[in-house]
């Protein structure tokens, strides 16, 4: 017990260290000594307005997405499902486009709610299609999700093109934290709060992850837990999409890496999943800022590369275990 807590502390420290690194790098040079010399209005303003919000946003988005991925995997009972492989993220993006077209003036909160509604509908459609697959193999599930995502994405592109919004929608969706400033990332706190709510209900998600019969046997209202889970996932995805755009695969990688080491008990693994998600996205963002300094590579692109490679490794590893 102590050892496990000890390791968790170590993980916390690791994430904190990454966050500190994230605070210190960027296009504007940060002179830490200014902070302590008392005179440094410049440094503390930079920190307050840009670096701290950005780092917070990274941690919040990473951990919430990781938890959303875990919940989705329990609901779909499939390791390869996450918001970007189930049509959820693409649906949220379609929602953002709908807002841009129909009600450009509404508040960010309303925008997030609309995107969340779209995400919910898209995910529901995904689950509906899954039910109709005759012999459901574990691999056909993410395949259907990726394709559904592609189809929804082509609808978005179609209308974006039609109304000359392609440029803005693709900048919007790039999965980029460079524009995060104080006052423009706070929605992520809502997503994080929902992720915490998911943590409180962790046992129930584990139960539905084992199976519907099992869940009903232990007295869980299966449909309600699934509905709540979908709502949490959709709103988390929407909060991230509306704030920074699409960030694929975080929800896939973090839970899988954690499950390899410690199994699938959600309550035990959830803090780890959240920390892994945060660490992953911090690392990718730092890499994106350092590789081509002073230019930035959007974290969505970096995560796409890392995530794609890890996804591939997971697939082939799984095959070795079977074969």
């Amino acid at each position: 017990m102590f050892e496990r807590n000890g390791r968790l502390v170590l993980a916390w420290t690791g994430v904190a260290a990454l966050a500190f690194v994230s605070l210190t790098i960027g296009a504007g040079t940060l002179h830490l000594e200014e902070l302590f010399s008392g005179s440094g209005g410049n440094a503390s303003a930079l920190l307050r307005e840009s670096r701290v919000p950005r780092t917070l946003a990274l941690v919040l988005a990473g951990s919430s997405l990781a938890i959303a991925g875990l919940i989705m995997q329990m609901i779909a009972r499939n390791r390869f499902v996450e918001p970007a492989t189930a049509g959820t993220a693409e649906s949220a993006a379609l929602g953002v486009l709908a807002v841009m077209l129909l009600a450009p003036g509404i508040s960010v909160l309303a925008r997030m709610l609309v995107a969340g509604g779209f995400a919910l509908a898209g995910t529901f459609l995904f689950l509906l299609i899954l039910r109709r697959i005759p012999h459901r193999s574990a691999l056909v599930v993410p395949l259907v999700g990726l394709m559904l995502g592609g189809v929804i994405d082509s609808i978005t592109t179609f209308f974006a093109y039609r109304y000359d919004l392609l440029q803005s929608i693709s900048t919007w969706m790039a999965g980029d934290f460079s524009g995060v400033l104080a006052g423009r990332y706070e929605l992520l706190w809502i997503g994080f709060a929902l992720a915490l709510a998911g943590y409180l209900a962790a046992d129930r998600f584990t139960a539905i992850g084992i199976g519907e019969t099992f869940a009903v046997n232990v007295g869980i209202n299966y449909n309600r837990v699934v509905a709540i889970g979908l709502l949490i996932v959709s709103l988390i995805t929407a909060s991230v999409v509306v704030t920074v755009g699409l960030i694929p695969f975080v929800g896939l990688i973090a839970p899988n890496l954690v499950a390899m080491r410690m199994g699938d008990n959600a309550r035990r693994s959830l803090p780890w999943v959240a920390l892994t998600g945060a660490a992953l996205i911090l690392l990718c963002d730092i890499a994106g800022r350092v590789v081509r300094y002073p230019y930035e590579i959007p974290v969505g692109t970096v995560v796409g590369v890392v995530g794609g490679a890890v996804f591939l490794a997971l697939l082939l590893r799984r095959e070795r275990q079977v074969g």
Partner: protein
Amino acid sequence: MANSAIRSSRQTLFGLFAGAMLCVALFLTVGANGQWDFVLPFRGTKILTMVLVGYSVAVSAVLFQTATGNRILTPGIMGFDSLFILLQTLIVFSIGAQGYTGIDPRLLFAGQAALMIGFSALLYRLLFHSGGRSLHLLVLTGVVLGILFRSLSEFAGRVISPNEYLFLQDRFFASFNNPDTQLLAFSYGVVGAVSLMAWRMLPAFDVLGLGRERAISLGVDHRRTVGAILAITAVLVSISTALVGPVTFFGLLVSNLAYWLIRSHRHVLILPAATLLAVIALLAGQLVLEQALGFGTNLRVVLEFAGGITFILLLLRDPRR
């Protein structure tokens, strides 16, 4: 082969041919307003491009499906065209935009096509050689590879200087509406040569459709035939991607439509049918979008939409195929 099936397949082919010709005629004339001097060469070039792209996509999809023994895999879905883009990006990455523009485009293309052949052979070995893998694993691996290739090109594109990134964007944003016609004559030559090679192997391709073991038992050199298909596919994918950019699902769409329309296993009937279907889809689609609806270059999006839905339906229908 039942004679009635051959006859009905021939009739279908003839109908498709007439349809394609009609599309060509309409594409040339609708809304021309008598400005023939400008319209004919301009649209003619476009038609030639579309025909070549349709042919390349359709033939590569059908042959790839024959080689891999299933009907939901295409080079597009396996990420081959993303691979082509990645290779192009990496070349710019290593020799710079100036070096890139300095080289004879034909030489450059030949080099890229050669790399494509090498990489696709590697991919094939990796994925198919050990045999007995589940189809879903193959497809999913292919899709994820495609995503990975795209992300890598994006990444590499961002790492090179912003100017070169712009150059790449410019270079890659060839589309159905804005094809890169510089290489058109050269491309026709290459496709012609490749097709000649394919033509002589058509009966062997039919046998390959029976599966690896039966094909070997009937005396087909499986390794050589599959190798030839991979090379043909790699070249055709390079051609179509160079001309109009990547199209993930188009090949899936036309190949499966062709299987559905043509009640025969023979490539000599299926390949023309798939090609004609592709040409009709491209020309009619472009025509409707441009002339009737007044949109611009949305054809790719519409095709991806239809193709994606086809793909999901195929998955739902029969998990073994």
